């Protein structure tokens, strides 16, 4: 008989390896000597504008449906089926583009580059999930994000991650967000899209590195639920922040928590806050020391992080096309290259002044210096806030979702024996 874990591993691995067969190059055009004229390259026509409205309508409807399933129906199955719809529509039909996760970069670029006209649909895809989150928690993650849906599909044996490891890995999305913003703000690259692990699967076309990344995430996802959402997703950082202030977040229990503890390990994301009734008996001296520590920690982390980030100025800038070109031109002009790259040849034929490229490169380099400082300071601040957050006392008597980390998937609701004000006899018995 089919044994899930072993066979699934093997199957998944082979499927992903097989995917690498899509990465073959296209055949070059034949060369004719007979005067045959190659037909003009035909480009597909632009997508009908009305379809953008359809996308938005689908987004709003899906968000509404998931929010309703989570808050009113408390139905995990309902959430699952909406997420499957989203996977098909936003994933396979829309091929992972348009995407709220990547829209962070468009918004950033629009903020830093006034010449960049951000499409209104992209802006709406950025804002609407945030608004829903502000009202209902991360229902976007629960059932609308195709990335989350894809990972949810393979989460067969989710294990609880140790809270300290979870906390440390929780810093990764901040780093990824910071880098994505830095590269977008400098007009360098949209790294979220470039390293999108799932778009290759949605499009049934991916390079080796993309497939490898997807393979690692999906294989990890069997045991660690939604690794991308929890430890990488930059948009998740924003949703996390906003969800903390959500007007009506889902609850584990529909009525008063009876502290039966059945839900204690139900959340594969470790997003359930366990009641803590033990007060920490701190002396005045301890409290003063803690306050001093936190006060001193922030400037230290921010300045230290900023300095370290600024040191990466040239490392980061090396990714920028203009800086790369300037670098190649410098080496080529000063050192004499036997073979010049296509980029240099293209530049030479453009007639653009060399100084212009050098000046552009220098400006970009300077932006990365500033950006490196800001990124480092941001990460320092984040680290400090996270450490400080772990210093705060948290008194609560019920099992409640961690509003920031909770993905509103509604799994925990299936574990709660409380049904309004009644309790099913069978589970009541077990409890």
């Amino acid at each position, binding site marked *: 008989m*089919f044994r899930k874990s072993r066979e*699934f591993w093997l*199957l998944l691995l*082979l499927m992903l390896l*097989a*995917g*690498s*067969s899509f990465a*073959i190059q296209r*055949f*070059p055009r*034949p060369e004719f000597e007979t005067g045959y004229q190659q037909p003009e390259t035909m480009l597909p026509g632009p997508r009908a504008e009305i379809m953008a409205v359809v996308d938005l309508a689908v987004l709003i409807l899906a968000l509404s449906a998931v929010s309703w399933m989570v808050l009113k129906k408390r139905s995990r199955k309902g959430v*699952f089926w909406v997420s499957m719809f989203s996977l098909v529509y936003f994933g396979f039909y829309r091929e992972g583009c348009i995407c709220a996760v990547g829209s962070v970069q468009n918004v950033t670029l629009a903020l830093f580059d006034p010449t960049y006209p951000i499409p209104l649909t992209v802006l709406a895809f950025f804002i609407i999930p945030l608004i829903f989150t502000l009202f209902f928690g991360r229902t976007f993650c629960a059932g609308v994000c195709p990335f989350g849906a894809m990972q949810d*599909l393979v989460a*067969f044996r989710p294990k*609880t991650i140790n*809270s*300290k*490891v*979870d*906390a440390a890995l929780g*810093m990764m999305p901040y*780093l990824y967000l910071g880098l994505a913003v830095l590269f977008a703000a400098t007009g360098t690259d949209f790294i979220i899209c470039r390293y999108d692990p799932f778009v290759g699967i949605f499009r*049934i076309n991916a390079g080796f590195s993309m497939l490898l990344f997807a393979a690692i995430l999906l294989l990890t996802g069997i045991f660690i639920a939604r690794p991308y959402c929890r430890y990488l997703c930059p948009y998740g950082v924003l949703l996390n922040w906003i969800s903390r202030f959500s007007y009506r977040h889902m609850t584990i229990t529909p009525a008063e928590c009876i502290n039966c503890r*059945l839900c204690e*390990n*139900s959340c594969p994301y470790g997003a359930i806050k366990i009641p*803590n009734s*033990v007060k920490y008996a701190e002396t005045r001296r301890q409290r003063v020391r803690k306050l001093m520590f936190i006060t001193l920690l922030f400037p230290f982390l921010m300045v*230290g*992080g900023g300095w*370290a980030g600024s*040191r*990466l100025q*040239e*490392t980061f800038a090396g990714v920028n096309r203009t800086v790369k070109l300037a670098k190649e031109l*410098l080496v080529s*002009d000063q*050192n*004499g290259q036997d073979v010049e790259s296509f980029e240099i040849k293209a530049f030479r034929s453009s*007639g*653009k*002044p*060399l*100084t*212009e490229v050098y*000046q552009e*490169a*220098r*400006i970009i*380099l300077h932006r990365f210096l500033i950006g490196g400082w800001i990124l*480092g300071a941001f990460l*320092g601040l984040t*680290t400090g806030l*996270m*450490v400080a957050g*772990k*210093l705060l006392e*948290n008194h609560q008597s019920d099992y409640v979702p961690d509003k920031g980390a909770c993905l509103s998937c509604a799994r925990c609701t299936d574990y709660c024996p409380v049904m309004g004000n009644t309790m099913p006899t069978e589970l009541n018995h*077990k409890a």
Partner: protein
Amino acid sequence: MDKLPDKSPDRTIRSLHITAFAGSVFALILSVMLILNFLQMKRIDPLNSRTLILLNERLKTNPEDKTLREEIRSLDLLARKAFFTSQWQIRIGGYLLLISGLVVVISLKTTDFIVKISPDEPGRQKLDFWERQSASRKWIAGAGVVMICSALILAFMTDHELGRDLEHALGGAVAAKGEPANANVGSDKANRENRMVELPADVPGMVSDSVTQSADQPSGFAANPVGFPTQAEIRKNFPGFRGPGGIGIDHHKNIPVSWDGKSGKNIIWKTKIPLPGFNSPIVWDDRIFLSGANETRREIYGIDAGKGTILWTTVIDKVPGSPAKAPAVNKETGQAAPGMTTDGRRVYAIFANGDIAALNFEGKIVWVKNLGVPSNHYGHSSSLIMYKDRVIVQYDQRGSAAVMALAGPTGDVIWKTQRAVKVSWASPVLVHTGTRMELILAAEPFIAAYDPENGKELWRTDCINGEVGPSVAYADGRVFSVNEYSKLTAIQLGEQPRILWEDSEYLSDVPSPVATAQYLFLATSYGTVVCYNVLNGEKFWEHEFDQTIYSSPMMAEGRIYLLDKLGVMYIFNASDKFQLIGQPVLGEGTFCTPAFTDGRLYIRGNNNLYCIGK
């Protein structure tokens, strides 16, 4: 979280498991087939079919072979069919794989929904809140430290010279707050053409530059000289005989066209040089360097370009291996004929006895050695030339001619290439030919080019007979060599350099020619100057000055500057019509070639160094 199967839907669960199993087996088979297909296509690689390439090569040699042509077409069609069939298989296989994967996942997910939840036994993992918080704090702090350390490691691994290189490339102008400097260094299209055509010697590769100005040192001093100069730095200065690359083309502006040594008109200063020497001045920032020598003493001078003061004199003596007695040389060569060179960090000089020295800008000896007394009946005269952080020596002597590169900081031999040539008095020329750097040397019996990186010979053309004094000229992929009692030869570079044209009407004994993309200017030792069409050797004009000329013509701002032995400078347009612009007189005889900086001209007379300008 374990889940217990409810007994009633056992059959459904079993069916789902079987479906999942069947789906996974199907997917497995598909995956294997697709992987095999991929490997096969990678092995066959129709994009680069060796057979097709070979057949195409054959067709090039015999383009009229219709059978071969048909064979190529058939093979090409086969390769395309194979490729597109494979593509079709991959696409269909991919879809099937996706469907089977979905079947597996749906089956397993449905099973999950059917199976009822059995929560974990509560209480197993009850942890103390504060213990968890404390551990998390430490791990977060640890992650922060890891991030900072990773950033620092990455930072240290990154080459941090880009900013500096850009500054140098932009002419060293420092822009405040990241705003672009208004430096005008780069090359717009016209400039680039100029560089590649008229000014081909985009000289020695210089990637990094770590020169820092010290506040307590006069400007121009390299406080901690490491690395080597950028192209912009080199163009800004005058680093060796006949300027950057040694091709006789200067890039400075506002070069004076009139002066008079007797009345002092436009003579900014004049300084007596203690020892004689036929080496021409070289300039770096506000320093001029010269060497002088007689039979008993060898000296190098560092001179303040602003006032003409000799700031330091360094005596080169007690060099291990140096002969006790200076070699016998022709009086028109002397003991200090080879031009010096500098990379902005050190200055290099060589003497007729084979002593070669590197000095820093304060005149302190960095290293000194003797290369062996050159067996040269007139006396060694080949000038030094710099490339990156090395100094290149053309040491064509009787019996063991060679060219070598010595490390600038240490004097160690980086490479040395033996040459099957006779004695030569010409100097090396270093140019970028559009695809690579070439070090071009002239000596009987050939012109040869070497890779300055490793000394490997790149090409050679037999075209020289007799003793060679003039160095070659270069422009736009063409090399011009000339020597007395032989011929003037134009060589077109390419994969196989070929002789473009030859002429033997006017030849030079000492002055080296200078070329542009259109014109070649040749000065003979007896005072005739000729302008040739570089393409076919046709003479545009010739003009007799009737004076002995040992100095080499230099081109600056579209004008040719040519000194005769009496110190009269002939300035004429570098065009196909002879137009004399001026004929200023220095008032002192000279053998040397002038050096240029913006608005200034430096001429070494037989006894004095002159600075000309306003």
